[in-house]
């Protein structure tokens, strides 16, 4: 008993002494911090420096006045340098812990992208690994500056869209920093980034840029982006436009599920069979649809989607890009140590078979 009592005393005394010695290292009030919400990376205008780094700081709202921010830019060769200089320009401690988006200028990623740009983010402890990486058009700075009228908190509309907390559309699939970095290294899985475009004061996200391990190689059209995300199994709610000679209608999907299988038993003639299952309702049609003719519509839709997906896959193959991860899939199922090399020979000669299974439940509330 006595020991215990002493201990409490020692504890309290010890705590006070040690604590005062430590001098509360790191104590910094929230109002003495300046939160970076988004980071933009552009090419520098001058020739001496490489990049123009912009940090978008959120200004805390004092009198219920929403959406105030300030963008501080600096030209530098590296991220770290730029941040050090920017620190001298603001009065409060620059805090990256709420940085949620990094916007790359398209031109930067089109050139050979230097890995330190990505590794700087991964290396720092205060930057979230769930930072979204996007490509900005026309420039990253322009994207940061855009302030839609409905936005309450700086860059919040970007966060909501990328995180799918707000709008849910099949054209958006947020790419996190950790996933981008994984794709940058993983053999057989190539990186991609959604593209944010400034149009008339609004931020439009409906395309994606595909990378090989070094640079941006290809930009998809919105429709292709959507199909790519179907294969990622990312979103169930979508609309599919089916257009044939006679009929033109739109399916509101409830469920999209895709899977693929690989048949590499014949090394010269390997096949990837992709299956996409779509379930939905007819939402709009340029004619008067009948419930009895649904199977016919399904056939049309299947044919249409088959073709589109196959085109996309062939396009990817031609550019030797693999954002879906066929290569990794192959590696994961072959025990040889040189499976990656084999795959590199297989991929260019691969044939794709796409099989879509569309199920239209009904034509909605009316026939």
């Amino acid at each position, binding site marked *: 008993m006595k020991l215990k009592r002493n201990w409490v005393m020692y504890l309290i005394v010890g705590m*006070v002494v040690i*604590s005062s010695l430590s001098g509360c290292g*790191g104590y910094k009030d929230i*109002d003495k911090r300046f939160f970076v*919400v988004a980071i933009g990376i552009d090419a520098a205008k001058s020739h001496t420096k490489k990049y123009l780094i912009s940090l978008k700081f959120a200004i805390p709202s004092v009198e219920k006045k929403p959406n105030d921010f300030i963008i501080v830019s600096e030209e530098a060769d590296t991220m770290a340098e730029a941040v050090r200089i920017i620190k001298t320009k603001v009065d409060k401690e620059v805090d990256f812990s709420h940085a949620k988006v990094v916007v790359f200028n398209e031109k930067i990623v089109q050139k050979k992208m230097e890995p330190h740009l990505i590794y700087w983010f991964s290396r720092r402890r205060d930057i979230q690994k769930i930072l979204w990486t996007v490509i900005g058009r026309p420039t990253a700075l322009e994207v940061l500056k855009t302030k839609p009228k409905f936005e309450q*908190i700086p860059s919040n509309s970007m966060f909501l869209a990328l995180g799918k907390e707000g709008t849910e559309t099949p054209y958006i699939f947020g790419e996190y920093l950790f996933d981008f970095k994984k794709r940058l290294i993983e053999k057989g899985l190539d990186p991609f980034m959604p593209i944010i475009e400034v149009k008339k004061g609004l931020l439009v996200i409906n395309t994606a840029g595909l990378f090989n391990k070094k640079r941006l190689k290809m930009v998809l059209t919105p429709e292709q982006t959507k199909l790519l995300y179907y294969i990622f199994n990312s979103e169930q709610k979508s609309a599919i436009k089916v257009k044939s000679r006679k009929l033109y209608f739109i399916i509101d999907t409830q469920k999209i599920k895709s899977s693929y299988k690989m048949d590499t038993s014949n090394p010269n003639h390997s096949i990837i069979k992709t299956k996409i299952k779509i379930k939905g309702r007819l939402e709009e049609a340029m004619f008067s649809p009948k419930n009895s003719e649904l199977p016919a519509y399904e056939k049309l839709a299947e044919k249409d989607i088959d073709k589109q997906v196959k085109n996309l896959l062939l396009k990817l193959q031609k550019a030797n890009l693999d954002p879906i991860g066929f290569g990794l899939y192959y590696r994961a199922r072959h025990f040889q140590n040189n499976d990656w090399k084999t795959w590199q020979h297989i991929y260019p000669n691969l044939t794709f078979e796409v099989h879509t299974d569309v199920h239209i439940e009904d034509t909605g509330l009316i026939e």
Partner: protein
Amino acid sequence: MLRSNIKTTQEDLLEKIQQTEDVVFKELFTKVESIKVFYIKTLSDEAQIQNYIIKPFYEIESPTLFLDYLKSHPKVKPFENEEKTLNQLLVGEVIVFFQAKIFLFDLKMDRQSSVLDTTVETTIQGPQSGFSESIGTNLGLVRQRYPQASLNMESSSIGKVSKTKVITLYDNKTVNQEVLKKVREFLETIDIEMFQSGEQLLDLIKKSQRALFPLMLITERADRVAINLAAGKVVLLVNGSPFAVILPTVMKDFMSSMADIYQTYWVGCFFITLRYIGLFISIVLPSIYVALTAYNPEVFRVQLALSIAGSRSTVPYPAFIEVFFMLIMMELLTEASIRLPKAIGPTATTVGGLILGQAATEAGLVSNIMIIIVSAVAISNFVVPVNNFGAAIRVVKYLLLVLSIFYGLVGVVIGFLLLVSYLVSLESFGKPFLTISEKKPAQN
């Protein structure tokens, strides 16, 4: 005993006691016999003296018969020694000198026997009355609620000056003998001059061990006592206090209100959960606020972080001073509302709480969010049903706050861990304080 002896005893007694106006020494005569009564008017019941002594004395004709009456009356005790007689006189018994004998007639006036309403541990439903200030009535109340032949009691007196009567109650069938032994030892070791009420025992335990948490439950409810007797606990009743002491007490008991058993099962569970949530909030919320605003704002969502930063931007000093300031203000308010007369109590709280808070934010002394936090802490603190325990919790949150100032989030978590460890290390009369189920968690 010889008449002369009686004479001396009588004179001694008269000599020892101060001759104040409420001391009555009177001789009554009939033709054949005389009787002397000696009592203190303010302590003894004069109507009963009239009924039990004076009337029979005049009505019973033969002195021998009257002597028999005295000897056989259940309220009469024979004389033992002078010392004891004097003590009994001082608590209100009547001393009767008749022939060569001295009798002590227990005709105490029970001034405080009226049963009081519960004021501290109120419940919405269930019994509404608590104990009275008279030990006899209280015993009766317990007996009434707990009609068991195995109910046992031991009487002792505590306090060198006050000589307060304390009754230890327990059920012979269910009581844990080791606990009982420890309670007896504890009562024997108490060294105090004035003992007025069971709450003092808390203080006594503190003096020997410096415990922060109460290790015994003080209650004013007879139903609580009965239920605890049935659970095998030991109950102490103190003369003159409407509170009983229940031993041993573990944390579970402090968190349960009698209202729980007057509810349906799931509602009871919900209330208990609610209380634990309240307990947790009132312990950690202030320190979490400091830790998160000053060390780790990244834990918040960005939206919340910005609004906190905004509301703090007018506050000129660091977050921990803000928290300390508001917490102390809140404690002062709580203390003040206890001291104030019931009629102005609510006014003071309203004025203090609402207007002060409002004004402080407008003046930019504290942030809006701080006001929310302080009120949340204050409210959830009073969810704890037992006052003593709630008070301990009020203190604990400052310890966590200090840790959070120096160590941030880590400090809060470690502080909480230390608190849990400390609670585990506590024992109430041999029982671990954090016992979750009454059945001792047997290994295997």
